[in-house]
């Protein structure tokens, strides 16, 4: 496996270099459109900055809306990457090789967007430095800031370390392009693939895989604490931590599948991302869907049996009240659709898995929304309960957020291979043999072996 880049045949992996060597016109146009949409979002935010948060549809009881929903949703998506990739690496799942990079990029790109949504929600974003001077460490919001920054750091490192050999490959591949070569030369850190470097790299990846998992789990746990640390009805729940982590991984896998199907189509990666990859990810999605349902069921059943009046007001506003359409769409998208599609072999095609994943993304966004808004809209004291209609500014910022996320993703794929070249190569050279030996080591030793 060492000096893999030297023995690598560039032509063999031409499809992986193509997005960088001969960028497609369609991708460039798509990126242009995404930039325009992001600019629209930026303009909306500028208006909000200029006229205050009143530009949103938020009001007295419903004081958190789209921004906080998006924040929780995006940070949830980020669990696609790092967590899935780290777990698959540690489990030595060989099929992970073309998947991990795609997952890790999602994490890093989406974390920026998620963190930005907190800024969008601030009444005075220019005072955002205040926690540095007057931070109150009792506030779950600060726990959030801490865990998200450490997550962002860790997952950037986790993306970068396995990227180094690939950057070196690119450096050699684009030796004739002055600026591109320079760019890769700096980033490749003098990688030449000697055994010592390879060893350090492997140790680095192994350490980061272990470090990143508890950080990732802590991130969404702490985000759930924003809600569950208050005494508000249907927020103050002990299972919110694991419930949010479960939902995060759930939506993360869905986002990963959508990205994989799209890029497979755009960059013709059919020979790398095979039906088996989607099959395996589909199984993971199914497991998470069932787990999500289990959590949701437990959460609402305990609430219902406790029958606390203020809890019940929120409960009924979700089940039959004004938030019922969102709630039941959520159940349909998060449970009914994925379970039906993913349980039957006939439906579990790539298209089927894609449909299930899109449903899950919609469902998980609605889940965040129906957790946040109905509780705020039904306060404990007998006020007229609130209504919330997001303003066009909020829609614009949401559109901008999504567009900018996809733009960042495409931008990455424009300069770096979206499938780890050296790892796929390693799988071919070393993985096959290693797996064979590993499987042999599981088996009972044959009589011939015992006798010797």
């Amino acid at each position, binding site marked *: 496996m060492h000096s893999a880049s030297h023995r690598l045949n560039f032509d063999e992996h031409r499809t992986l270099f193509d997005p960088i060597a001969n960028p497609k016109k369609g991708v460039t146009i798509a990126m242009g459109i995404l930039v325009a949409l992001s600019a629209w979002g930026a303009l909306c935010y500028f208006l909000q900055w200029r006229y205050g948060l*009143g530009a949103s549809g938020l009001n007295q*009881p419903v004081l958190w809306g789209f921004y906080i929903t998006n924040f929780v949703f995006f940070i949830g998506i980020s669990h696609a990457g790092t967590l899935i990739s780290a777990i698959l690496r540690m489990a030595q799942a060989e099929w992970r090789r073309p998947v991990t990079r795609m997952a890790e990029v999602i994490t890093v790109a989406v974390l920026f967007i998620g963190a930005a949504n907190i800024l969008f*929600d601030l*009444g005075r974003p220019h005072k955002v430095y205040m926690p540095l001077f007057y931070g*109150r460490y009792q*506030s779950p919001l600060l726990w959030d800031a801490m865990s998200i920054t450490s997550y962002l750091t860790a997952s950037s490192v986790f993306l970068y370390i396995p990227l180094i050999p690939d950057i070196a490959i690119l450096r050699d591949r684009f030796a004739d392009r002055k600026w591109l070569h320079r760019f890769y030369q700096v980033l490749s850190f003098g990688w030449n693939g000697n055994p010592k470097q390879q060893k350090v790299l492997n140790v680095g990846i192994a350490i980061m895989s272990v470090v990143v998992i508890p950080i990732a789990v802590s991130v969404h746990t702490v985000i759930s604490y924003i809600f569950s640390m208050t005494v508000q009805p249907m927020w103050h729940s002990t299972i919110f931590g694991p419930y949010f982590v479960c939902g995060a991984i759930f939506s993360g896998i869905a986002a990963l599948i959508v990205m994989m199907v799209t890029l497979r189509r755009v960059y013709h990666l059919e020979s790398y991302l095979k039906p088996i990859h989607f099959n395996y990810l589909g199984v993971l999605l199914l497991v998470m869907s069932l787990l999500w349902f289990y959590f949701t069921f437990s959460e609402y059943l305990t609430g219902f049996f406790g029958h606390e009046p203020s809890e019940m007001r929120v409960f009924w506003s979700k089940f039959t009240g004004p938030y019922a359409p969102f709630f039941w769409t959520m159940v349909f998208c998060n449970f009914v659709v994925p379970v039906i599609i993913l349980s039957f072999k006939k439906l579990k095609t790539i298209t089927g898995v894609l449909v299930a994943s899109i449903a899950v993304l919609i469902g998980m966004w609605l889940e965040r929304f129906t957790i946040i808004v109905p509780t705020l809209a039904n306060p*404990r004291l007998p006020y007229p309960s609130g209504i919330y209609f997001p303003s066009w500014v909020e829609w614009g910022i949401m559109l901008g957020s999504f567009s900018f996320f996809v733009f960042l993703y495409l931008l990455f794929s424009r300069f770096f291979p979206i499938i780890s070249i050296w790892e796929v190569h390693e799988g071919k050279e070393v993985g096959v043999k290693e797996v064979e030996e590993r499987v042999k080591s599981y088996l009972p030793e044959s009589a011939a072996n015992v006798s010797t």
Partner: protein
Amino acid sequence: MALWGMVIDLDKCTACQACMVACKSENNVPFVGKGQAERGRVISWLDMVTETEEEYPEARTKFIPRPCMHCDKPPCVKVCPVYATYRNPEGIVAQIWDRCIGCRFCMAACPYNVKYFNWHQYRIPKTMERGLNPDVYVREWGVVEKCTFCSHRLLKARDRAAAERREMRADEYIPACVEACPSNAMYFGDLKDPESTVSALSRSPRAFHLLEDLGTEPKVTYLMEGERHALR
């Protein structure tokens, strides 16, 4: 050191809302205008909560004036990431306007919904500018504000006492709402002093607190309605 508290006798309260008006003008609370009010953005540090009992023999609506409860265990204080809201040694839950970053976490955490947000930069009409209270800060857009028990009056009373070289008496400090109440339904004073009116009244069998079971330990005590019916 004193522990300031309030008692509101619901039997004497006529729901005239003079306290609300007094509060608004005392604390430079902005008028948000009709459009904003329709969108649910009225700022009213002291609000009138109405509760209609539908199932009881006769349908009756209760009116409950609701200032900040100034909880001894305030849920809003714990969640503020910048110490912009805190409980001061005299039990007043105070707000540092200038430090607030506008995350509204305290509003989400307060079970009484006593906190209000400045969604826009609200302007006081020019003709009313002279009516502004010079003792109270005018808040910027993007900050959370709330009832302070008119703590500027406490500072003023204390300064006056200091200037006259004497101890401040508890009755020198009264919030605007209590002062304005025409039916004397509101009382204010030091809860630590067992002789004070508020202490005596808060020991009354009629005394109760809003959402008592949440363990927030409010320092605003209500006296239940219906005393006269009971005595008859």
